[in-house]
Each structure stands twice: as C-alpha cells, then as structure tokens.
C-alpha cells in the first residue's frame, strides 16, 4: 500500500497523463461528471456521485462505427479505428465498477463488441472508496462493498492523503509508472475507515431492501402483475434514469449525412422512449406502461435469468436522485414487496 498527499494529486495526474488518457470527475458549470483531465480542469473528488456514471469511458454516449464516402458512384467504407491508446479512469466508485462488470456480460459475450473490448483492454480503473455514502445508495443490496472497491487499483482519501493499493496486473503496471510520486503506507488507517464506512452503510435507509421474489422463475407472475398499471403513471417517459445508469447498455444505430459522407454511429437509447426499437411494423411496446415495465423487468428479472442471477442494477441510486417524477427502481421493488405482503 502506498499513499500520496492530496496536494500532490495534480502531479500524479500529469504523470499518469504522460502515457495515458486520464478520465476523472471534473466539475463543469456546477456539475461533476467524468471528463478528460487537462491542466485547467476542476477535478472534483469530493462529490460522491457524478451525474452520469463512468460508463462513457468504455461505452460512450455516441461513437462512430464507420464512415461511407462516395467516390464517383462507388461507395467506400472506412471503419472507425478501435481504441489503441491506454487510458485510466480515476475515481470510479464501487457501484460503477460493478456496473462495468454488468456491461462486460453484455459486450464481451459472443459476439464480442470490438469497440467495447478494445476499450476494456486499454483501460485501467482506479477506484475510490465512498467515504460518505448517501441515503440514496443501496449498493450493499447487490453485494457491493463501497468501503473496499475492487478494481485495478483501489484508493481511499483519508485525512488529506490518498491511499493507493494495486490489485490487478494493470494496477501494478500503473503503480509502477507513478511510483516516484507515491510513498509507502500501512493499512491501519484504511482499515479504520472501511469500518466507519460500513457502519454508515448499515444505517442507510435502503440497505435492507429485499430482493426476495425477483429471481428468474417469477417472470410471468411479475410481468402480468397489475402493480405496473399504477406504478408507471407518473413516468414522463424521459431517458434520465437510463442515461445516468451505469448498467443501461441499449443503443441505437443511426446514420448522419455530413455532406461529404455518411457516418454510421451508435448512441445510447432508452427503453423509456416511444421510438425505442421502432421498426417498420411499428413498436414492440406501444404503451408507456409496457416500456416502464420493460426497464425494470430487464434489470431485475430478464438480465439475472440470463446471467447467473446477476442483477443489472448496482444500487448507485442515481435514478433515485435524478428522476423528475421521483420514480425509481427502489419504489418498484418496494411496490412488489407490499404487493407480496397483501396477498
């Protein structure tokens, strides 16, 4: 275990940036999101949750797939180059790291998404423990320990010092590259901090949320439940929950005519949108209730059914924070809990 004083962090960042693209929480116009590090960037490691998760680092909101250009009447296709530059994502929280695991299940399964795979191959994750968990957090429910994040490197910010522990080979390599800036440290303080964090987590209102009854064999029962009919009603059909979610992985593929060629790109899509998976015949789900149900059924039933019981919710609580209509996955889970009690 190593440590580095907080005031030396910018030296650390510029050292990392010498050989890597560095992606970390940056405050722009009062909001903190992951962004590329520059000398001028206002790095913000204090805000617990970035508005968007760090998902963009591996699965950006939009990315080019290939470009078609016309040469006379022939069409030439130029595929977009895959990520070849190493990069570091600094300051990811345990829940977001877990989110990447969920994405891996989707994009690294056959057929492998080469764009995603290239990014995963070149990306090193430096995770940061959550020192002051908030009332909207419920990562514990999904077995995540926000006090002890598991990534390439885990870090803790304690008393103005960043504690640094390499976990994987990639983590070791990165540690080696910045060795000069780190000093040796013992784990006592970190262990104390972990205990303190875990104590708080126990007190969080959602920590005891029960996922009982959400395993695969309840699919039809959940699907046909009348609860959805009432539950969805406040939903505005916006994509906020989807876009702030670290695990939502749906995308749409679109073409853009630049005037001198056509770019085929993909961009995040939201199952809450009425034109989600719109096809020539129309839409698979033509009411908002169906769309609403889809999102939560996917996170809590379909995904685990196909992925050895792994839920595609990590309990980051962003949707709890951000939903304009104050709807969220917790309310959904609880609604069924109550339903179960009534029966």
């Amino acid at each position, binding site marked *: 275990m190593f440590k580095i004083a907080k005031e030396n962090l910018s030296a650390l960042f510029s050292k990392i940036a010498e050989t890597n693209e560095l992606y970390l929480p940056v405050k722009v116009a009062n909001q903190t999101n992951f962004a590329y590090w520059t000398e001028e960037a206002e790095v913000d490691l204090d805000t617990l949750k970035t508005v968007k998760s760090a998902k963009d680092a591996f699965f950006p909101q939009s990315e080019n797939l290939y470009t078609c250009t*016309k040469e*006379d*009447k022939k069409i030439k296709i130029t595929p977009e180059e895959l990520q070849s530059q190493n990069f570091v994502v600094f300051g990811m929280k345990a829940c977001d790291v877990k989110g990447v695991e969920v994405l891996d299940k989707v994009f690294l399964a056959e057929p492998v998404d080469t764009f995603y795979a290239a990014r995963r191959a070149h990306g090193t994750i430096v995770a940061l423990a959550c020192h002051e968990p908030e009332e909207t957090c419920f990562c514990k429910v999904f077995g995540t320990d926000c006090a002890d994040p598991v990534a390439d490197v885990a870090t803790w910010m304690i008393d103005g010092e960043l504690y640094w522990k390499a976990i994987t080979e990639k983590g070791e390599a990165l540690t080696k590259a910045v060795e000069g800036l780190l000093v040796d440290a013992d784990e006592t303080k970190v262990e104390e901090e972990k205990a303190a964090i875990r104590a708080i987590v126990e007190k969080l209102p959602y920590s005891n949320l029960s996922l009982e009854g959400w395993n695969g064999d309840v699919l039809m029962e959940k699907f046909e439940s009348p609860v959805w009919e009432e539950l969805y009603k406040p939903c505005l059909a916006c994509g906020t929950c989807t876009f702030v979610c670290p695990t939502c992985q749906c995308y749409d593929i679109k073409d853009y*005519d630049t*005037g*001198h060629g056509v770019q085929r790109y993909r961009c995040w899509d939201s199952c809450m949108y009425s034109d989600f998976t719109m096809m020539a015949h*129309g*839409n698979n789900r*033509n*009411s908002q209730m169906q769309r609403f149900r889809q999102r939560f059924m996917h996170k809590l039933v379909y995904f685990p059914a196909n992925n050895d019981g792994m839920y595609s919710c990590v309990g980051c609580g962003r949707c709890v924070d951000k939903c304009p209509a104050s709807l969220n996955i917790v309310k959904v889970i609880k609604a069924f809990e109550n339903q179960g009690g009534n029966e």
Partner: protein
Amino acid sequence: MQRIGVFVCHCGSNIAATVDVKKVVEMALLEPGVVHAEDYQYMCSEAGQAKILEAVKEKGLTGIVVCSCSPRMHEATFRKAAERAGVNPYMVEIANIREHCSWIHKDMEEATKKAVILARAAIAKVNLNAPLQPGESRVTKRALVIGGGIAGIQTAIDIADAGYEVDIVEKTPSIGGRMSQLDKTFPTLDCSACILTPKMVEASAHEKINIYTYSEVEKVTGFVGDFTVDIRKKARSVDMNKCTGCGVCQEKCPSKKAPSEFNRGLNTRSAIYTPFAQAIPNVPVIDRDACIKFKTGKCGLCEKVCQAGAIDYAQQDEIITEKYGAIVVATGFDTIKLDKYDEYAYSQSKDVITSLELERIMNAAGPTKGHLERLSDGKAPKEMVFIQCVGSRCADNRGKSYCSKICCMYTAKHAMLIRDKYPDVNVTVFYIDVRTPGKNFDEFYRRAVEEYGVNYIKGQVGKVAPLPNGKLLVQGADLIDNKQILKEADMVVLATAIEPDPSVRKIATMLTASIDTNNFLTEAHPKLRPVESPTAGVFLSGVCQGPKDIPETVAQAGAAAVKAIGLLAKDKLMTNPCTAKADELMCNGCSTCANVCPYGAITYEVKQVNDHGIREDRRIAVVNNALCQGCGACTVVCPSGAMDLQGFSNRQILAEVDAICR
C-alpha cells in the same frame, strides 16, 4: 428512389458563355438518383422539350430537373412538357442558373461551380418530390359587386350583359356614388347627372342585375368560384314593393334638421329622405336617428300621408346569404378629413370649402340652387382662390403621400366654369405642379389660362386667415416671381386629397384581399394584373385600387368585368396542389395553425385514428385544398411538423439546404 433526368440549357450563350454546361452535366450524373443528364441549346424550344420526352421514354424518368432560366419564366413550360411525357408536372424542378448565376457572375469557373451546386439542390429536392394532383372546384355563376358608384354600375352592367347574374351591394340608400354628386365633368364639361342617370336606370332595369341598396356586406367565406356572402339589408322602414316614390312623405316630414349627406352637409334634409331626386331606387329611407317617431314614439306623419301604405316602422335588418363565383370591389373614395390642416381655416370659416362641396354649390340641385355664393353671408364672391395639393403629396403624417390625380383637372374645370358663368370673379389657383396627362387634358388646362384668364401661381399657400371684414387673407408664395403674396379672397376652395372609402378596410379583411399602407387595395401585379386582387376571385374596380378619374374608372370597371366573366365562364377551377397537409398521426389539434392561416382554410375534425395500434378519437387539423394558397405560415407554427406544405415540404427544403451547404 427516383430516376432523375437533368437537362442543362445553354440559353444560346446566355448561360453557356459563363457556365461550363458540359461540366454541369458531368457533375449532375454523379448525384444520387440521376440516371440521365444532357445539355441543349434551348431547352424551352420545341426541340428542347422533345429531348425531355425522349429521355422519359428511354430511361423511364420519374423526376426532371431543368437547369435553365428562372422558374418564373419557364416552370410552366417544362411542367407541361413533363405532363406530355407522362410524368407528373410537379415532379419537375428548375435550377435557376441564368438569372441567379450566369448573368451575374463573370468568372467561368466560379459560375460553373455555383451552377453545379444549384443543380444539386434541385436534384436533392426532386428526390423527395411526390406527384401532386390539382383539385377541382365548382364555379357559382353569379357575381357580387361591392359598391354602387360608376365603377360598380359599369362592372355590373358588363358582367350582366355577358349573361351572368350580378348583385350590387351599396351601403347608401341609392346607387350613383360620388359621380352623382358632381356637377360637370372634365374635359368635356358635360353634365355628370346627364351621363350617369341613364347608366343607373340601365343597371336597375337589367334583368340580370339585382341591386341591394342601404345594405352592407357582413361576412364572406369560401373561395374563388364558391364564395358565400352574408349581406345585411338595413331596415329602410319603407316597403320597397309598395312605395310609389311620390315624395309626399319627404315634404310632410316635420324633422328637417339632419345634414344632407348628398350635399356634403351644406344643407339639411328630412328624416325620411331619398338622397337626391334621381335616386335609384326612388324609395326613401327613414333616418332613425333623426326621425321623431323613432326618437319619441310620437309623430307617424309619413305613415298617415303615405297613400300606398308603404311606411313600416317595425321593419328589421335582414340578412341575405348568397353564393357567388366572383367578387368585384368598387368601394370608391372619400375626401380626407381636414382637421390636421388648421392653416387653411377650413373649420373656422364657412367660406373655405372643399372642391366636392363646390361641386354641390355649383349644381342646380345643390344647397344654393347652383348660384355661386358665400355660405357665410350668401354674397356673391369677387375673389376666389383655389389651393392645390391639400393633403396630397405629403410626406408628413398629416396627409397622403400620393398624388390624388384628379384635382388638377377638376380645379381647371371649376375655374373655367366660374369664369364662364361669372366673368367678374377673379380666380387664382395656387399650385405646385399642374399635372395633366390624358387625352385633351393639357389643352383643357391651357384653355382655363388662355381663354378664361384664370390666374395660376406656382407656389403653395402657407396660411388662410379669416379677416374681421369677413374676407379671407390668403398668404401664398409666388416662386416664379420670388415674392410672397397676400390676397384677400371671398372664397377659398381646397383641392382636398382623396382616400379610399373607410369601409374598404373591413371589406379587405373579409375578403383577405391585401391593402397597401394608404388603404388602397393591392393588385395581383401592378402592371400585368392591375384589376385583380392577389386573392383569387376578387377583382378591383375604380378608386379603391388607386386614384383615377371617370374614364379610367369606367375602363377599369370594364376590365374587372371581363376578368370576372372569364372566371364565371368556367365550369370548374383547377386548384393549386401545393397546399398544406396535416399528418393525422402527428397533429396535436392545438389550433395554432388555424390562427395564422390568412384564408381560413384550416378547420378541425374529431377523427378516429390508429396510432401504431392505439385507436383514439383525436382533434385533427383539416386543410381545405380549395382555400389553401400554399403560403406555409401554418407549417412553421406547428411544432411537431405535422403540418407540412406539399411541393415545399420540410424535407425538401432541408435537402436543398444540405445540398447547398455541402
């Protein structure tokens, strides 16, 4: 995908001299959808059009782009050619590479580059064109003439003579208009009534003409060929069918204090009255504001004296609804109010009068029985001053910016008549310019000077001041002698500017006919379509379109009649297919589009729609294709883009933008 043919015209050397037409052909062939491109000397020639026909046949073209002169020039030509070739005429687009390119650019390379881009834009548009079919609408064989002056009368007679029914709507109790108020007419000096009365009689006797006097147009709906008009027939209080026109009621009427409209308020009339002796119809009306019976409930004398029993105090306004194929506006003019011209003392002295008032004074049926006398004291004037351009040619906010056109001539007429009848009266005319274009006009004016000794002074009058001795001190300038003139006059006559009758504003709004800043109705084209309003089926007759004298008015009245007849002679009308259309699935039914539609072409219907499996009743905009003129105002206020314009759709215009900017 369309199969597009591109035809590039040389226009002799007009285009080919600055645009490399071969290059345009070459570049056009690279565009998506283009399967054929060629250039030719004159695309608009028979041989040129034949090339289109040939290419359609050989290559199975579905869209055509002609790179040539302005679409305003030959769009119609090429649309017809396309039609002959079996292609929908609305699948043709023109790239204007002459007016917008070869004629304004000198550099060949630059002009060619631009021509290629303009061609691209047209190709991009045609790629998204859809065949359009003009609709048909029926024509009601009946015309409405609004206004019963000489313009309206003449138009009505001409249309009726061609065999079509005509209704005249006149707001005063009699037809005749301003011309009936005139004494003599220039430049022949024949008596106005003598030439007008026979026309009035002809109109009233015509079996195809129906006259609504004391009536106003209340509401107009519909469109060219199929207007529906509500006419308010105001309560006359006299039964038109029973009245014999004996005039006893007017003689006996005890209320004689109402100012006579016909005599411009210079004298009074009875409460029950016909405006003038030759009035048509010769049926009086009761002025309810002046009538003692209506004011107090007592009197009823006219009813007692009427042997025909025609008086009907209980009569109500009546609304008549009628359908018309064409509408002619002939609302005429009035003189402007002089309240902003204090310097001429019009409101201070009875002896300062307008020219139209002078007409009444000079007229044998007028307030002074035709004697020229001062209205203040009845004395014969010795010194008369005429002031020209009162309120005309004014750039300030007091008057009118235009020349009223008729004043120079009628002033010469007045001066001449006075000098002829009263040789002892000195007549002085202050003028800025004397404008006498017209047959025998200048000769007429010269006669006033040379034969009748009228004193014309170039220079405007600054002030007219009533003097204690009852005379008027006229302070003017003589710009030729460069001196200021002070003249004591007995009477001053103001050549007051004319303006469209105020009623025209309301009528224009009802007809959605446009009016200019001076409230004159706008022509469809100032030179080539001078008697048509831009609103289809609405025609303009007389001064409502712009100042003009009697012969011009009559000529225009005839022209308007011919245009109306041309329309009425058709059984069906083709409507422009480039109209707005609402997408039922996207329309919100919010009514915003209807708010901006100048033609009232958008209405709403509750319809059942099937929106991707959801069936519901929705309020949806429906465009009447016969009413829609295709301006597109509705398309921009529609946030979802449900309302789109056929032939100029959002996608088409965006495609043009893209093609130009790329």
